[in-house]
């Protein structure tokens, strides 16, 4: 337990020390809120869908969690190339616990990032319909974070170095984000897009956030929680399976 804690703490300390990383990763959500939130607001309103910024904010919060957690998971690649991973791999501690410590740390960092983005979107004019929804929404955020940190760990365990980074970005992270209903409502989609959104685990996270924050869920909160938890378990399992296989 102590060992898991110290690995978790390491991740938090590293996050808090890299101010440039914190500030840098806020640029993108702000851009989305500004360009899309304000830019498409009028059109959305005319279509009778209400306030676009309120609709968009949960999607942007989830986006920042997605990015931060995938990269936290993939930090294994840096740790491997710069040597620190060896230090943990030879320690008397099961690989499963190493993976848990790291994943928890990465997920915590991503959740903090999500909360910061939520606060920023409040400044931009986001108003939750239900303020008490924020607390269960943070649980959803943590689940999203856990799920994608585990996915990042899995990907990182399979890659030797950062060469494949662009590939992961364009064929995994971006599709996960754009096809999840982060930017558009899930009602009345063309069949193919609806199916894809159903497969994308991020959809359930964003839908859950919308259900809690702006009373606008699509799948239903129960379904969202169910799929998030099940997929998180599956990815944690896969992540630790591949992490165990790492050889240096």
């Amino acid at each position, binding site marked *: 337990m*102590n*060992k898991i804690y*110290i*690995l978790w703490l*390491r991740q938090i*300390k*590293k996050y808090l*020390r*890299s101010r440039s990383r914190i500030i840098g990763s806020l640029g993108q959500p702000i851009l989305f809120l500004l360009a899309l939130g304000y830019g498409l607001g009028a059109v959305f309103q005319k279509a009778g869908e209400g306030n676009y910024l309120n609709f968009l904010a949960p999607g942007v919060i989830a986006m920042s969690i997605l990015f931060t957690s995938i990269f936290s998971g993939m930090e294994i690649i840096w*740790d491997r*190339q*710069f*040597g*620190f*991973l*060896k*230090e*943990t*791999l*030879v*320690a*008397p*501690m*099961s690989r499963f616990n190493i993976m848990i410590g790291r994943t928890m740390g990465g997920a915590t960092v991503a959740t903090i990032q999500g909360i910061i983005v939520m606060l920023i979107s409040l400044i931009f004019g986001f108003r939750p319909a239900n303020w008490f929804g924020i607390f269960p929404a943070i649980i959803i955020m943590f689940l999203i974070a856990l799920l994608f940190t585990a996915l990042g760990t899995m990907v990182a365990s399979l890659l*030797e*170095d*950062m*060469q494949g980074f662009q590939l992961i970005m364009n064929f995994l992270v971006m599709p996960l984000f754009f096809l999840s209903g982060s930017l558009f409502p899930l009602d009345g989609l063309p069949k193919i897009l609806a199916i894809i959104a159903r497969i994308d685990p991020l959809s359930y996270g964003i839908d859950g956030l919308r259900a809690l924050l702006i009373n606008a869920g699509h799948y239903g909160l129960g379904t969202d929680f169910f799929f998030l938890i099940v997929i998180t378990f599956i990815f944690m399992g896969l992540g630790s399976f591949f992490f165990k296989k790492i*050889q*240096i």
Partner: protein
Amino acid sequence: MIEVTNLTKKFDDFVAVDNISFSVKPGEIFAFLGPNGAGKSTTIKILTTLLQPTSGRVSLNDHDPVKDPDAARRSFGIVFQDPSLDDDLTAYENMELHGVLYDVPKKVRKERIQMLLTFVELWDRKDSQVKEFSGGMKRRLEIARGLLHHPKIIFLDEPTLGLDPQTRNHMWEYLKELNKTENTTVFFTTHYMEEADRIAQRIAIIDHGKIIAIGTSAELKAQTGTQSLEDAFLKLTGNVIRDEAASGVDQFRQHARMWGRKN
């Protein structure tokens, strides 16, 4: 304490370690010598559970690193050849993390961290992040960290590379003391022949993945009819200079520089 039987490791077609067998007794100080690329580090990686052997058997303190890696890991400590510190953490935090991972009790941990950091003359820099350290300071910290828990076996992969004579002497004094008081088995590699000659009780020489000689320094000299261990080593392994293939890390560093990340 360490038993290696018919160990082989292949990377695709390349045979890094070719059917080697040797054993190290409890409490022995054992040097593992060989030119670059001879298979030293690969052997150490297999012994320390970082790599899986292609064939053959290994036993560490009666545990099999392949079948029971956790038990094997409890038996040893290692100082790696290449860096394995976390640059974003401070010197103290690196030590602390290691102590926790190796179950060193809190009180002992605090005392030993202070003692070891003082010992490698980094105590006044304990709260600086490791990325501010010079190469030599990092190396010293790495050594201090490796000595923090007192394992049954300690592996040192070229520990003294880039250390000044003072620190080197300090380190060996400490290890010899540990060897005497706790009967710690020491397994090390080095390119400094006089060091192996002075410290090791027994020496194995590996080349092209095969062990070509094993024995005390005196035996090796007698076997080759030479005066010094260096001459014996050269006689056994030849005068050709070896190249190691650029490791993934080197390639990566280049890549990282290209992408503007400092390392």
